């Protein structure tokens, strides 16, 4: 099977993204969105990036990582230090910040990738958890990051006023990861997940590929961190603790392991849900938890299986008809 960049699949993805973009832009410009909804657009974008990049490690590679928020915090802090120390004009500062944030996170992804070669499953999960806590403590004690007071005065480059750019970055990242999975490398990741011994026996350098997945996921998480930092304007180490990592893991699990589209939808739902539930005041977080449980049950229910079977059947019928 020969792969082309301009495949049917890619064209459809780009079309969906373009339609989404126009739709949101019309909603914003037409004043149909409340301020609350506008302020949630950027968190939506960086959560989608976080979920999709974690999906690469958890869903595709099959390794459990509980330290994804740490990569985000590295991207956020390194880029914020850059933009606050060198006061460059926005059109230079932002692209450089994105690159710096991504690369710093990727570098640490490489470092954490080394124990990945030796550990599996639960052990790896604990290592990544510890790694996240170490990063948090470092930011807490370094004088340059403002310690527990946080790093403030970060220029706001990626608020919803810059929605177009943030959306573009998100879309490009999603397409890149999607294409990576469809590529030879993506098949290798799947092979390692399904049977790493067999993969090794066929001559696949398992260690190299595992590290590669970590570095790529960390790079994109770093970029999500850059978007976060320049949307909120203040960074505190405590915000990037394991709770955040687990929140992102929940998105990946809810979206279905290894499914990029599912991760995106789950990220959107889980980001919007607490905002939509605001009218319930005191019961908000309780309802959020209940909805989460319900969604997980639905995900594993026979009802969903039936719905999917139905969809596949109707698709088959369609293709059969087309075949005729």
């Amino acid at each position, binding site marked *: 099977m020969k792969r082309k960049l301009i495949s049917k699949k890619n064209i459809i993805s780009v079309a969906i993204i373009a339609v989404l973009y126009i739709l949101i832009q019309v909603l914003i410009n037409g004043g149909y969105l409340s*301020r609350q909804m*506008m302020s949630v657009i950027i*968190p939506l974008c960086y959560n989608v990036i976080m979920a999709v990049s974690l999906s690469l490690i958890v869903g595709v590679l099959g390794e459990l990582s509980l330290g994804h928020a740490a990569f985000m915090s590295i991207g956020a802090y390194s880029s914020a230090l850059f933009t606050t120390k060198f006061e460059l004009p926005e059109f230079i500062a932002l692209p450089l910040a994105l690159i710096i944030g991504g690369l710093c996170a990727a570098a640490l992804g490489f470092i954490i990738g080394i124990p990945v070669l030796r550990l599996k499953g639960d052990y790896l999960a604990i290592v990544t958890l510890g790694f996240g806590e170490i990063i948090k403590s470092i930011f807490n004690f370094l004088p340059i990051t403002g310690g*527990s007071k946080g790093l*403030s005065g970060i220029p*706001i480059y990626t608020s919803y006023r810059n929605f177009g750019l943030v959306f573009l970055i998100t879309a490009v990242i999603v397409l890149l990861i999607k294409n990576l999975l469809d590529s030879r490398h993506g098949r290798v990741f799947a092979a390692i997940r399904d049977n790493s011994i067999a993969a090794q026996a066929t001559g696949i350098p398992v260690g190299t590929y595992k590290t590669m997945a970590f570095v790529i996921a960390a790079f994109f998480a770093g970029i999500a961190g850059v978007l976060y930092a320049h*949307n909120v304007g203040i960074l505190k180490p405590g915000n990037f603790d394991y709770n955040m990592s687990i929140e992102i893991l929940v998105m990946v699990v809810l979206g279905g392991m290894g499914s990029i589209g599912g991760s995106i939808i789950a990220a959107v739902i889980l980001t919007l849900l607490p905002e939509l539930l605001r009218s319930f005041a005191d019961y908000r977080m309780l309802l959020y938890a209940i909805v989460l449980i*319900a969604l997980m049950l639905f995900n594993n229910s*026979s009802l969903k299986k039936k719905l999917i079977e139905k969809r596949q059947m109707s698709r088959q019928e369609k293709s059969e008809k087309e075949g005729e």
Partner: protein
Amino acid sequence: MKKMISTTLATLTLVAALASCGNNANTSGAKESETGSSDAKTSDVSTSSATDVFKVGAIGPLTGPAAAYGISVKQGAQIAIDEINAAGGVTVGDKTYSFEMIFEDDEATEDKAIQAYNTVMDKGINVLMGAVTSGSSIAIADLTKADGIMQLTPSASAENAIKNDNAFRICFSDPEQGVAMADYMIDTLGKTKVAVIYNNADEYSTGLGQAFEEEVAAKGGTVVTSEAFATGDMDFSSQLTKIKGTDAEIIYIPAYYQDATYITKQAKEMGITLPFIGSDGWDGVLGTVTDTTTVEGAIFSAPFSASVEDDHVKTFVDAYKKAYSDAVPDQFAADGYDSIYTFKAAMEKASSIESADLIAAMTEITVNGLTGDNITFDASGAAKKEVRYVKITDGAYAYA
């Protein structure tokens, strides 16, 4: 059976989602009528003045680890609102306004604070009380400035939480309190050699400790040793041993009462008889010590303490206990209460409910609050009030 359960749950989810959507549609519908542009604020104000309701938007943590602060501020502010509304509201010109508070949860995180702020703005608020925590206040500072809305934080003590000219605060900033304690120690207590124990993982404790040490040095005193600990520590023997080996005359502990409880108890066990001074985080320490003699004679700076004999405080504490099933109000509740009375004073002074007029009036008002008798505000937005000190005498709190 399993199928039935999951179907029911799925339906429930759908209902919940629809219900919230419906609610959201309402608010966004209201927004539409104000035209989506950002300078719809003026029309906001005129519509709400027709109904004579003065809407106070508030944001703070109602869930998460910092929830206690947000809930206290909310409840304290509600007491003030109930008092004012029961007394007939606030008269501004020829109109009378009753207060209404819209409180949104920010979980004490910065990104959620932005969403919470935009949510209260959607509801057409007149002024903003918040955020309760420093990080959230800083995160929304530039947004409130751009909207030109008056921002009054009850309890964000970080210095740059009020860096914009539309922002004010009720509580002391961390450095202010540290400096005041250093002055009190040297001028009133006459001690010059001090040991400091602070939490270096906590912004509040670090801020106070640093300002205190700088002021002690500036006044010619000596910080003989400065010992750090981290959140959650329970064993302070290494820090105390070190202090015991110095010629310190007094120990300053800018920390929360849980830490103070452990430190004072272990100090007594080690035979350290030095007096203690602390910060407002100490309020409540008598409830956690097993032996009150360990903290006997300790002095801490405290803008508010529910336990001292004072008519104004007593009225508030009684109302609070009655409304919230015998809960004892803390400093955050008092800050929330004073915030509402500050809005009232500014409205009366300015004869207006427009944020710009209220901001202009802020430097001219005097508020007789729970956290200070005559609170005034300077141009920087900081509250000017005398620092109060509470001394633990015979196992009870009393103003020193």
